[in-house]
């Protein structure tokens, strides 16, 4: 019995830990529950670039990330999907139309000369812009991880976002329009110079080289800058040395140097390369759920989950008596540990995910049902209570294992091939199945053996109603 007391301790600790985790780490809710937009963006190959490689995807991803940042949605996620798609998640986006419009379309990279006499203005506008950007970033850093934003904060975010956009426009207005676009840039490479400093080499085609020579000639030595804009946002504004005032920077290639670290040089490289890609991107899937609808779904699923769990608990207690009640306790522990596991592993809970969780409750019960049925059979065959319980667990094990493994195989297939929502379901069901194996084989087992170690519970009728009493250890068929 000491063994089971030790196990009881372990189970208690786990349960308390689970409760702590649930209260401390918020559950991550999917966009279908908290509201927001999920967009799948397809990168289209063109005649010039018929196949899309990892390198191009990286560049396009940077461009899309830049656009997403421009939307000012906190906790937005951009990730690659397959070889030519990007998944963009925009929690709580207030204007899905605008988001979809901004994210689609080919990147716009431009090299534009600064207008004469705007030096001071550029500095001021840039400072204002940096101020807004910094304030926005600081505000977004304070947001709770759960994504609950009150309307005041939302209003402030929207206001700052508008300020940033306005500032960006003001900055862009200080540069002359230009025809030197990303289509004429052939490459951008970050490379180290001396010590820890880095620089970025850019390379134009012949037409671009000529245009760049013109622009650089016009501003060389004036202190004015060449503005490099991606989607109308200023990426970098290098000056051109006076020595190029005669001819401009010729040869189609130039080096942007300055206070680049390895990281910032690499950022600029990818942004430039992304801007140089004439790859159109198209929004091929849009799933947008309003926040009110999401809250509604949570409530409904909560009712469904509680009602489902309640029905199962009542059934078990009524049908299986004492073991049923013990299994009920194990089941509640199971639900707590599983929920905690979701929070701990950072599983994003979607609507199908909740369904998978509710379903796994049924699965968790199955193991107990197998064990108790077996125990009853052994009791009816005239074994003692202790031996019946023991062989109930022992003999049911292979069925439980086989059943769970086959379910896990399905989950694995779903997870591997499925997308988005389907993955969520497979993950929650799989976690549920694995934890249910544990709770059925340890929690129920421990509780059962502790219960039959107490004399008042050692009555076979508590385990199997209507059992014709057989004197222990006499009959064996």
């Amino acid at each position: 019995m000491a063994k089971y007391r030790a196990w009881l301790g372990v189970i208690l600790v786990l349960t308390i830990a689970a409760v702590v985790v649930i209260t401390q780490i918020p559950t991550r809710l999917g966009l279908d529950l908290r509201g927001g937009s999920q967009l799948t963006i397809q990168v289209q190959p063109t005649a010039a670039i018929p196949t899309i490689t990892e390198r191009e995807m990286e560049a396009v991803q940077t461009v899309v990330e830049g656009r997403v940042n421009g939307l000012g949605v906190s906790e937005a996620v951009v990730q690659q999907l397959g070889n030519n798609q990007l998944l963009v998640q925009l929690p709580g986006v207030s204007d899905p139309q605008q988001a979809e419009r901004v994210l689609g379309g080919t990147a716009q990279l431009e090299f534009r000369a600064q207008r004469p006499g705007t030096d001071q203005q550029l500095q001021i506008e840039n400072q204002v812009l940096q101020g807004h950007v910094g304030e926005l970033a600081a505000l977004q850093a304070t947001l709770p991880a759960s994504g609950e934003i009150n309307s005041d904060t939302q209003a402030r975010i929207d206001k700052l976002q508008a300020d940033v956009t306005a500032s960006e426009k003001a900055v862009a207005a200080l540069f002359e329009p230009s025809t030197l676009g990303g289509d004429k840039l052939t490459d951008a490479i970050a490379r180290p110079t001396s010590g820890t400093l880095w620089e970025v080499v850019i390379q134009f085609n012949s037409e671009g080289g000529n245009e760049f020579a013109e622009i650089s000639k016009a501003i060389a030595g004036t202190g004015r800058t060449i503005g490099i804009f991606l989607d109308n946002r200023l990426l970098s504004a290098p000056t051109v040395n006076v020595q190029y005032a005669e001819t401009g920077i010729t040869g189609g290639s130039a080096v942007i140097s300055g206070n680049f670290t390895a990281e910032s040089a690499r950022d600029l490289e990818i942004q430039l390369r992304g801007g140089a890609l004439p790859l159109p991107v198209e929004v091929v899937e849009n799933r947008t759920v309003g926040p009110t609808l999401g809250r509604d779904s949570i409530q409904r699923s909560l009712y469904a989950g509680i009602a489902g769990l309640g029905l199962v608990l009542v059934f078990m207690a009524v049908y299986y008596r004492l073991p049923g009640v013990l299994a009920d306790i194990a089941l509640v522990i199971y639900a707590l540990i599983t929920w905690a596991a979701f929070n701990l592993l950072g599983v994003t809970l979607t609507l199908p995910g909740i369904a998978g969780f509710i379903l796994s409750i049924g699965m968790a019960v199955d193991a107990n049902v197998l064990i108790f049925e077996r125990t009853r059979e052994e009791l009816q065959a005239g074994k003692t209570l202790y031996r019946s319980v023991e062989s109930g667990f022992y003999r049911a094990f292979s069925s439980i294992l086989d059943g769970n493994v086959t379910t896990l195989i399905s989950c694995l297939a779903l997870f591997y091939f499925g997308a988005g929502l389907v993955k969520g379901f497979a993950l929650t069901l799989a976690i549920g199945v694995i934890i249910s194996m544990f709770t059925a084989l340890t929690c129920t087992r421990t509780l059962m053996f502790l219960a039959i170690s107490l004399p008042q519970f050692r009555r076979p009728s508590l385990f199997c109603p209507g059992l014709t009493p057989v004197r222990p250890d006499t009959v064996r068929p």
Partner: protein
Amino acid sequence: MKLNIIQQRGLWWGISTVLVLVSLVAMAISWQQLGAPLKPGLDFAGGTRLQLTRACVATDSCTEPLELADVRQVLGDQGLDSSSLQLLGDDQQVLSIRTRTLTVDERAPLQSALDEAIGPFDPGSTQIDTVGPVVGKQLLVSGLLALLVSFAGIVAYMSLRFKLDYALLAILALAHDVIITAGTFAILGLVLGVEVDSLFIVSLLTIVGFSVNDTVVIYDRVRENAKLSPGSHINDIVDSAVNQTLARSINTSLTTTLPLVAIVIFGGPTLKYFALALIVGFVAGAYSSIFVASSLLALWRERTGQAYSDDPDGSEPQPEAQS
């Protein structure tokens, strides 16, 4: 209660055959009428679905249900006559529009036109789903692939734990469950216009996992009984194995179905049909495990001269000992 599985196997097989045939016929009719065995939903067919809810608190516009004729008028103006419409919600205040795939520049004017004509709608309760044709095909292919792979995985695992013939018969029972579930939704699609989406494939896979579980429990018992009484005929072994596990089979089906019934009652529209598919599949799965998979195993063993499992070949790997 004692079931005579073997004796009445003609009856059990008859029921299954009729159900499977009805399902296949339903799918064939659906194929003829809709061009697909099941009515494909947005996920597979592609298109745009807008679900708009009238903002009822702010304005007093909710006294009357939405008029479909008004909506059609707006859609006609936008050149979207062939769209399908549906009113949802208790007091018909929720509008669901399904159109061809709309780009954002087509969708935005439609939304504002609708808002003006019959709105205002609550932006917090708006749901937009757009699935491009490419994505639709992708979702279908990946779903079917997942189904095939899990079938193969289960065959491999069961051949390892049992034997190949057990595995193949279990798969046969699985196919039975999947066909009946699909058939039920083909009928629902024809009668009520119910569509299938990615979640339907999820439900099929879950059914596969659970149903094979039911079959495994019975086969496990058959194997154990065969070992305990080597001289018995396979028919008797199967009969007693099914009856010994019957309470378990019924109770497990009950406890898994109870939460699903809760989802059907409380769950939103998305999960309702998902839960329904699971209920149909689980019931079919329990039936096929108890009546079909078991009797087929007996028949197969008898026909292949393995009615008495005292041959050394019949010994199976033991589960690891649990102390």
